[in-house]
Structures are given as structure tokens and as C-alpha cells.
């Protein structure tokens, strides 16, 4: 590995280090000028001419969390060992993101145009059949075919759902729901600095130490015990007509609460909390639609849930978490696997709610094997096919 000489314009090590900090910042590690100084100080404490030592020292100093810890080596190599650096400016190795490039998932999927356009008649139907068949080895195939045929029945109101105004309303509804879920108070009173009532018991106990004089007045109040929301949204082919509305809905859920978490899944799982928090809501919607379309195809609900439980789940779930799953329940994997994943999730989360767009349909019965396997593990299985149905959820969630 050859060490790149400093570029002609660089002003020695300090300048190069500032460049490195800027390079890390561009790759998502929040660092400032303060760290440049710290980094130089750290290098003075080690044998800085040994790249291995410099790497260890800078990693300990500059990395803030586990994700960055794993990616640091690539970033380090890209900056300090990139041959041809002088000519290319800051373009780096393929692992490393530069501002101009976007991950593949954000690029529009070639053959897959906007699901929300609601093209006429047969063409649309056929596309959905196609997307589903792509996965091939499905169990519960008849279930998915039913879904495909009935797409035509609901298309009209769904097309109405696609305009800007309705998306905003879906988002507003979700925000209200998120607040209804989040605002909980504990039943027990705990010590509080202000508000609430006087805690006579504690005051008396403390007064013993002061010879029976109640000098310290303690108070107790019911502390807030906010519920966290973790939303998992299915963006597979069969759900693509709902994708836009549900993404807006997700954004509403996430926006109301800084601790909420959102994921999209399909055959893979992807965390989209950060994209959803984009301040520019149009840009966020565009980013997400691109992500969602990038997925396309069949569904692996149980696989995605298992991936979630093994990965993010450990941190995302606790006894004060409501898990919201948005899916039609058509899964290509075995129902037992789904039941198993939900059992595991059940143990870690407080409530599991399944929002099913099919459930609002007339004569809907949960016949798909996956949803039948899932039902015993759910706290609620609620319809979500129209805005009115979504709005009605607020009361349901309030009672959970």
C-alpha cells in the first residue's frame, strides 16, 4: 500500500487532517474544526509515522458509534491511501459515498413507473400479477391472485388518495395517532420536582432526620411513560398501490415523535427513519417512493421480521413499544415462520398492531395462511384501506 504524497496545494499535516475531517463529515460522521485539533494532538501521542497506529488512534478519537466504527477502515484507506488522489480530488473507493452518488436503492427502478398513476384497466392489473409472479414459489398463491383481481375495484378511491392534499391528510392523521399512542402517564406516582401532590410519606420519613421538622417538601406526580412507535411497512408488489399513502402515513407517525422508528420491507428490510425525517417533505416523499419502488416484487414478511428482530430489534423494542405492521399479509414464506417471528416480537414489544388494507373490503375474511397464523399473536388487526378507516384508528390506538 503506497502512501500518497500530499497534494501540492496542501499546507502540511494540519491541512491534510482538516481534509480528512471534511471527508469523514461528508460520509455522515458529524465532526467539526475542534476535532481537527484533537486529531493532531492524538497523533502527537502515538508513533504517527506508523499508519497502523495512526489508524487506531484516529479511529478511537473520531468515531462516535458502532456503525461508524465498522466503516472507518474504508474511509481511512480511501483518504490516506488512495492512489491518484491528487488528480481525482475527493472521489474515493466504491464503498464510500460521496455527495454526488446515491445508493442504488434510491435510483428509480427501470421498468417500474409510479404506482400512484393508476393507469387504466388491464395494464395495471397485469403488472401486479407480474410483480407477484416474479417471486415464483409462493404459498398462498390464490390469496395473492384475489388481491390482484380486486385491485380493480378499489382503484378509483385509491387514485383519489394520490393527490397532494390527501397525502397531507394521511400524514396529519398519522401524527394524531402517534400522539394518541405516545401520550401515556404512569399509574404510579413517583418523586417529582414540581407539580403533582405532596408526598406526605416521604416528607415524614425525611423529617425524622431533621428532628421531626418537615423542612424538605417532596412532591410526587404521575410521570409520563411515552410509548415508542416502531412501524414496519410492506412495500411489495401487492402493496404498491398503497405505498404512497402509507409512506405519508409513516412520515406522520415518525414526525410526531423523535424516538419513533420506521422500516420498509419486502424481501429485505430497510431502515427509513432518517429519510422520513427529511425536513423537506416533498423531497422525503420522493426519496421514499424511489426506495419503495426499488424494492418491487414478492414479500417475505417472516424473513423481514426475523431480520428486524436479529438486527435493529434489540435496540428498537422494549416494554414500552407499539409495533405497527402495515401489510396485506401475503407472504411467500411458511406461515409457521411468521408465527415464530411474531412470538419472538411479542416477547419484546408491548403491543403489536397489524394494519391491513384488505381488511376494510366487503366480505374480507382472513383466509391467507400467513394472516391466519399471525392473528393469535396480534393485539389488533385493523382495516386501513381508506382515509376514513385510518382516521378511525385513533380511537382504537387510544385504547391499546
Amino acid at each position: 500500500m503506497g502512501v500518497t504524497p500530499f497534494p501540492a496545494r496542501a499546507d502540511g499535516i494540519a491541512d491534510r487532517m482538516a481534509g480528512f475531517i471534511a471527508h469523514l463529515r461528508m460520509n455522515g460522521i458529524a465532526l467539526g474544526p475542534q476535532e481537527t485539533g484533537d486529531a493532531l494532538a492524538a497523533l502527537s501521542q502515538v508513533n504517527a509515522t506508523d499508519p497502523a497506529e495512526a489508524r487506531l488512534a484516529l479511529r478511537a478519537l473520531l468515531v462516535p458509534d458502532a456503525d461508524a466504527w465498522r466503516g472507518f477502515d474504508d474511509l481511512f484507506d480511501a483518504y490516506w491511501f488512495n492512489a491518484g488522489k491528487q488528480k481525482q480530488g475527493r472521489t474515493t473507493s466504491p464503498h464510500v459515498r460521496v455527495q454526488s452518488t446515491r445508493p442504488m436503492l434510491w435510483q428509480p427502478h427501470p421498468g417500474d413507473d409510479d404506482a400512484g398513476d393508476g393507469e387504466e384497466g388491464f395494464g395495471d392489473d397485469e403488472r401486479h400479477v407480474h410483480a407477484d409472479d416474479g417471486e415464483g414459489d409462493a404459498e398462498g398463491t390464490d390469496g395473492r391472485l384475489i388481491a390482484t383481481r380486486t385491485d380493480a375495484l378499489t382503484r378509483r378511491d385509491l387514485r383519489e388518495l394520490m393527490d397532494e392534499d390527501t397525502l397531507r391528510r394521511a400524514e396529519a392523521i398519522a401524527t394524531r395517532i402517534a400522539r394518541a399512542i405516545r401520550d401515556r402517564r404512569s399509574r404510579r406516582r413517583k418523586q417529582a420536582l414540581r407539580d403533582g401532590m405532596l408526598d406526605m410519606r416521604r416528607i415524614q420519613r425525611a423529617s425524622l432526620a431533621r428532628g421531626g421538622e418537615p423542612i424538605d417538601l417532596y412532591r410526587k406526580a404521575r410521570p409520563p411513560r411515552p410509548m415508542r412507535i416502531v412501524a414496519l411497512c410492506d412495500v411489495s408488489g401487492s402493496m404498491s398501490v398503497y405505498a404512497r399513502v402509507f409512506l405519508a402515513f409513516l412520515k406522520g407517525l415518525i414526525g410526531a415523535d423523535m424516538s419513533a422508528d420506521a422500516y420498509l420491507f419486502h424481501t429485505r428490510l430497510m431502515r427509513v427513519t432518517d429519510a422520513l425525517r427529511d425536513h423537506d417533505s416533498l423531497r422525503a416523499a420522493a426519496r421514499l417512493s424511489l426506495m419503495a419502488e426499488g424494492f418491487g416484487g414478492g414479500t417475505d414478511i417472516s424473513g423481514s421480521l426475523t431480520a428486524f428482530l436479529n438486527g435493529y430489534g434489540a435496540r428498537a423494542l422494549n416494554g414500552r413499544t407499539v409495533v405497527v405492521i402495515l401489510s396485506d399479509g401475503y407472504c411467500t414464506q411458511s406461515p409457521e415462520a411468521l408465527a415464530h417471528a411474531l412470538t419472538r416480537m411479542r416477547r419484546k414489544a408491548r403491543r403489536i398492531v397489524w394494519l391491513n388494507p384488505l381488511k376494510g373490503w366487503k366480505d374480507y375474511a382472513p383466509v391467507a395462511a400467513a394472516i391466519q397464523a399471525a392473528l393469535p399473536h396480534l393485539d389488533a388487526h385493523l382495516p386501513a384501506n381508506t382515509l376514513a378507516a385510518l382516521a378511525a384508528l385513533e380511537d382504537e390506538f387510544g385504547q391499546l
Partner: protein
Amino acid sequence: MTERTHLTLKADLAGTGYVADDSIAMALHLAMTLGRPLLLEGPAGVGKTEIAKALADASAIRLIRLQCYEGLDASHAIYEWNYQRQLLAIRASEATGGTDEAHLFTDAYLLKRPLLEAISQPEPCVLLIDEIDRADEEFEAYLLEILSDFQITIPELGTIAAVSRPTVVLTSNATRDLSDALRRRCLYAYVDYPDADTELAILNARMPGIEARLARQIVTVVQEIRREDLEKVPGTAEMLDWAAALSGLGVNDLAQDAEMLQATLVCLLKTAADRDAVPTSVMDRIVGKVA
């Protein structure tokens, strides 16, 4: 005194029976030389807490430990006035007719809790703040002042500046996200499950008498089990427990007694689901590989 580098530190730690990899030795070295706190993250049972203990041992300095929990407040972490003693002093001075109360708020009546104790040590010490992710966010915010300025303000006494700067080690199991402000002030090291060679070195360091063949088998089996789909992946601590159990039972070869092996798995697998995930057949396959 020879100049300390991360390599000499690593050797010192090895002297106390702690096998540190380069990145952790470097992080500790920088934490000591730059005077910055060190945040250790990683799964449970990989020896995060041990690092602080080993560091204190290696440098022959005192270790002060603050175990965090939900609801930890200033009176448990920083200081508290000794009310009973103050009261007795008042009664005593009443009896003798004295009225002086100024002496009631002095050092003599102050109960020092770990944080205040750590900064008022005459010699630098190691301050271990264990499982910081369990403490409330308010406490984390309070900690920021102490970690950046090394001073504590007590309204009745004024600001107490650090007599010596402790080396601060924080550990976290990532049960919740720590604030960016705290992360920025700390050096960071991620402690992962050790690879086979490191784990073997750890086992040999902790149990010097163990047979080489058994040690290799134990490490290989544990590494294999970590690859299974488990809820609670066994850490280094569990591996050492298991090794102790096996040598206590006089097992010399894992392949010799499958029943005994299953029985001792309680040391590694801590939930019912995990027990079910590693039935005898899986264990036989794993042990078959190493035997």
C-alpha cells in the same frame, strides 16, 4: 520511566490477565494521555467492565465504580449531606449552649458518592461508569459537565475542582441511544466478540492450567455456537464459565460424554428458546467438527 505507548499498555494489561486487542489498547492509551473519557460499546459479556478493572490493576491505581440504573440521581452519584450527623451536631451544640451553625455545611458532613470521590482523590484513579445507557437522559446531561470540566458544584460549598483527573471509562450495552453530546466528548471503542485466536489467549490467560486440546475445542465450539441463530449470544464471560464448569467436572475431551456436554450448556445458553435452538443433534455436529 520508559515512555508509555499503547503496546506497553497492552503488555501491562496482559500482565493482569486481560488480553486486549490493539484498538482497545490504543483507545485506553489515548484516554489516559489526552485526558478524555472513553466510551466502550459492545454486546454483553465481552469484557467491557473488565477493561476498567484491568486498567486499574495494571497501573496500580484505585478503581471507583458507579453502576448506573434507571432513576439514578445526584444524591446517589455525586454527593449527599449527612443529615443525621448534622442533626446530632446541632443537638450537641444546643446542649453546650453554642449557636454556631456555619460548620454544618463543611466537608465533615458531606457524604461523597462515586463521582465526587473520584475527582477528590489525591492520586489519579480509574472511574468506571458502568452501563450508562441504563441511567436517565437527565443524568447523562449532568455527567457532561463533570466529564468536560472535571468539577462539581455544591450550592452550600461552591465549586469543587478536581484534585486529580481520573481516567474515565464508560460502558454501554446500547439499550438506548446515547446523546451526540456525550459521544462527542468521549473517545470510542467498539468491543466485539473476540476471534478464535484472541479467545484462546483469553482462556489461557484466565485458566492457565487448562489442557491445550480442551482449550482449543472449547473456543471452537463457542465460536460455532455464536453462528447459530440465538437470542442471547454467549460472550467471553460465558465461555470462561463453561470452561470452568468443564474442567471442574473433569472433562478432558468434549467428544467423550455427550450427555455431560448438554448438561453443561446451561453456562452458555441462557434462555429456553436458545436451549431449543441448539439440540443434541446440532451440538453433535459442532463437536464432531472439532473432535
